[in-house]
């Protein structure tokens, strides 16, 4: 009997303890409608939070919580959450994953916002609107644009009395300069990241090739220009002009650039903030547009804000997305210099956000942009492409053979998508 009383007592104690805990929580979240916003870039958190606090002031009763997941785990987490019906109310979406989420009905269409002029389609580049349109409905509000430029370290160029890269540079200028730097200093002149966008996607485009056909139905790896680009990169590797795949896997190209072990590198516009935060290099670096090969081209990609189709607060979520795609928000984004705003009129503000940088190196490429290669199952063929291109970079396969295999396997995957 004594035991029973004791255990009952302790049970009562436990429930009273947990009771206290839950009471506290409900008071703060009872009235407010909470919107969760999922994103992956911690660098952008301060800007986004400042925009959100403005939104919260204008819309009392709505609270927005920002949830950051690093990019490498973002899609895994998002997909798991979506499967369990627990997706965040609003989330960042990118081109490779867009069709997958749109097709699975995970995204709430926001065409009504376009129709009632809350979002002005013409304020954004046509390509971005196209990228996020599915079934003739706009599914995500354009947030920002990213593209690639050639960054260089002025100090290294000065010490060797070399001419800085400029907007009239050609591919050959870059390669000869890189070789010269390597010969004189022993350090690499140029580094590529082997990640796709920022490196071989750009080079394939500059050579006039394609990763995927514009209608997304066939692979671009049978295109002689694509094969020529892969061959050229392999040659750079063979001549040890650029660090090997192994060296880059060990230390990323952007880290090599920041530690001044390499004089030039291709970097996406999202790296501007990172480089400018680095006290050691921030006054020593600048950028130019990508050097010209066959044609001026760069992969253009951009993020969008998508709303979860099953969100409990669709009206509030739409309000927030409208607010985030307004000119004011894009101006705030532009001033911070973190990303190129998708809003065309705000882009000029962005190019002046860092007066000591030639940010036109990025914006000049926007008119020549090539849509980021993506389809329904982007991840599947990307995996095949990476596997076989890695074999080329490692010297296990010839570029011709690898491109042939990629072409065949990629076409098979793309065929299944229809």
């Amino acid at each position, binding site marked *: 009997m004594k035991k029973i009383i004791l255990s009952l007592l302790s049970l009562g104690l436990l429930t009273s303890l947990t009771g206290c805990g839950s009471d506290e929580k409900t008071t703060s979240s009872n009235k407010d409608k909470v919107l969760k916003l999922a994103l992956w870039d911690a660098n952008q958190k301060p800007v986004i939070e400042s925009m959100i606090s403005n939104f919260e002031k204008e819309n009392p009763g709505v609270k927005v919580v920002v949830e950051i997941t690093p990019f490498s785990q973002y899609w895994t987490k998002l997909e798991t959450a979506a499967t369990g019906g627990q997706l965040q109310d609003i989330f960042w979406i990118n081109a490779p994953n867009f069709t997958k989420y749109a097709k699975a009905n*995970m995204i709430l269409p926001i065409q009504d916002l376009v129709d009632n002029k809350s979002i002005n389609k013409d304020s954004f580049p046509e390509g971005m609107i196209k990228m996020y349109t599915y079934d003739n409905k706009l599914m995500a509000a354009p947030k920002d644009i990213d593209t690639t430029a050639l960054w260089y370290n002025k100090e290294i160029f000065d010490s060797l009395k070399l001419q800085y890269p400029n907007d009239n540079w050609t591919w050959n200028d870059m390669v000869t300069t890189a070789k010269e730097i390597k010969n004189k200093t022993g350090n690499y002149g140029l580094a590529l990241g082997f990640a796709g966008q920022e490196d071989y996607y750009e080079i394939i485009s500059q050579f006039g090739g394609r990763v995927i056909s514009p209608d997304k139905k066939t692979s671009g790896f049978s295109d002689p220009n694509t094969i020529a680009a892969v061959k050229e990169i392999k040659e750079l590797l063979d001549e040890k002009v650029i660090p090997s795949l192994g060296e880059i*896997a060990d230390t990323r190209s952007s880290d090599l650039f920041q530690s001044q072990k390499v004089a030039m590198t291709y970097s996406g516009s999202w790296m501007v903030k990172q480089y400018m935060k680095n006290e050691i290099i921030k006054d020593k670096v600048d950028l130019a547009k990508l050097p010209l090969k066959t044609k001026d081209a760069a992969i253009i990609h951009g993020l969008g804000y998508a709303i979860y189709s099953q969100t409990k607060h669709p009206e509030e979520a739409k309000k927030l997305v409208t607010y985030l795609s307004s000119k004011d928000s894009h101006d705030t984004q532009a001033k911070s210099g973190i990303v190129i705003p998708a809003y065309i009129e705000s882009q000029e503000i962005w190019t002046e956000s860092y007066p000591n940088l030639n940010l036109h190196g990025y914006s000049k490429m926007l008119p020549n942009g090539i849509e980021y290669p993506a389809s329904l199952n982007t991840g599947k063929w990307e995996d095949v492409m990476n596997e076989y291109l890695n074999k080329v970079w490692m010297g296990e396969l010839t570029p011709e053979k690898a491109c042939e295999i990629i072409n065949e396997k990629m076409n098979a995957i793309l065929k299944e998508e229809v």
Partner: protein
Amino acid sequence: MRKDKFQNSMWAYLMIAPLVIGIGIFYIFPFFQNLYFSLTNLGAFGQFKYIGFKNYEKLMYDPKMYQALKNTFVYVLFSVPLGITCSTLVATMLNSKIKGLTIYRVLYFLPAVTMPTAIAMVWRWMYNKEFGLLNQFLNNFGFESRAWLSDPQTALYAVIVVAIWSNIGYNMVILLAGLQGIPKMYYEAAKIDGAGPVTCFFKITLPLLSPSLFFVTVMSFINSFQIFDLVFMMVNRTNPAFESSMTIVYFFYTNAFQMSERGYAAAIAVVLFIIIMAFTWIQLKLQKKLVNY
């Protein structure tokens, strides 16, 4: 009398209920669910269709599965014996009377309570070709710097070293408990008979430690077959050493979470389950021959 018995057993069931319910929901139910999913084409966002044994058929002809199996076996073959030898040595040393004993015990146990991700980050830094401590140290002896984690020939072994190091602490605590359970009088008697420390170790310590050693071995085998976090953190997808260090669970992860081929991934998990079960069964059979009680 009967009523009393019933009351007692009721209390017992009530007390173990939270655990049993927890295990049922989070282990046993998912286990059977996984078995079923391995017969479906479960993809992204949870839609699926029953497809019979097609996943297993595909698995049989997938060269990546064999590569993953090979890597995992290399990993197990190195990390289990070496790990146990090291832990036994450390445990024996920490069982003697030396100055600062508790400090050493804490130091050796620290990796066991550190997050694997943190361990992986630190070791990645140490292995780095440009800035790593290990290469700086080797340079002093005239060796050239190597990219340990992105060289297909060294990556898996580099990870094995870290795994052994991080497991020493956990194994050590169990072995230490085993060592302290050995009565001192055996050693005293042996000393009188003229046995040295080496003879004592092999004739007294080892046999009497065998129950703890057996437990540690079984657990190490199971844990090693399931290795994922360290490899995942240290060798990423674009690393040229990826293929030569990808383990079964890593292979499972890429299929389940990167390619959204969940049904196929479920089949991989079932195969891994069968392998681990077979190994544990063999060990339990061997137990009767090798373990002294």
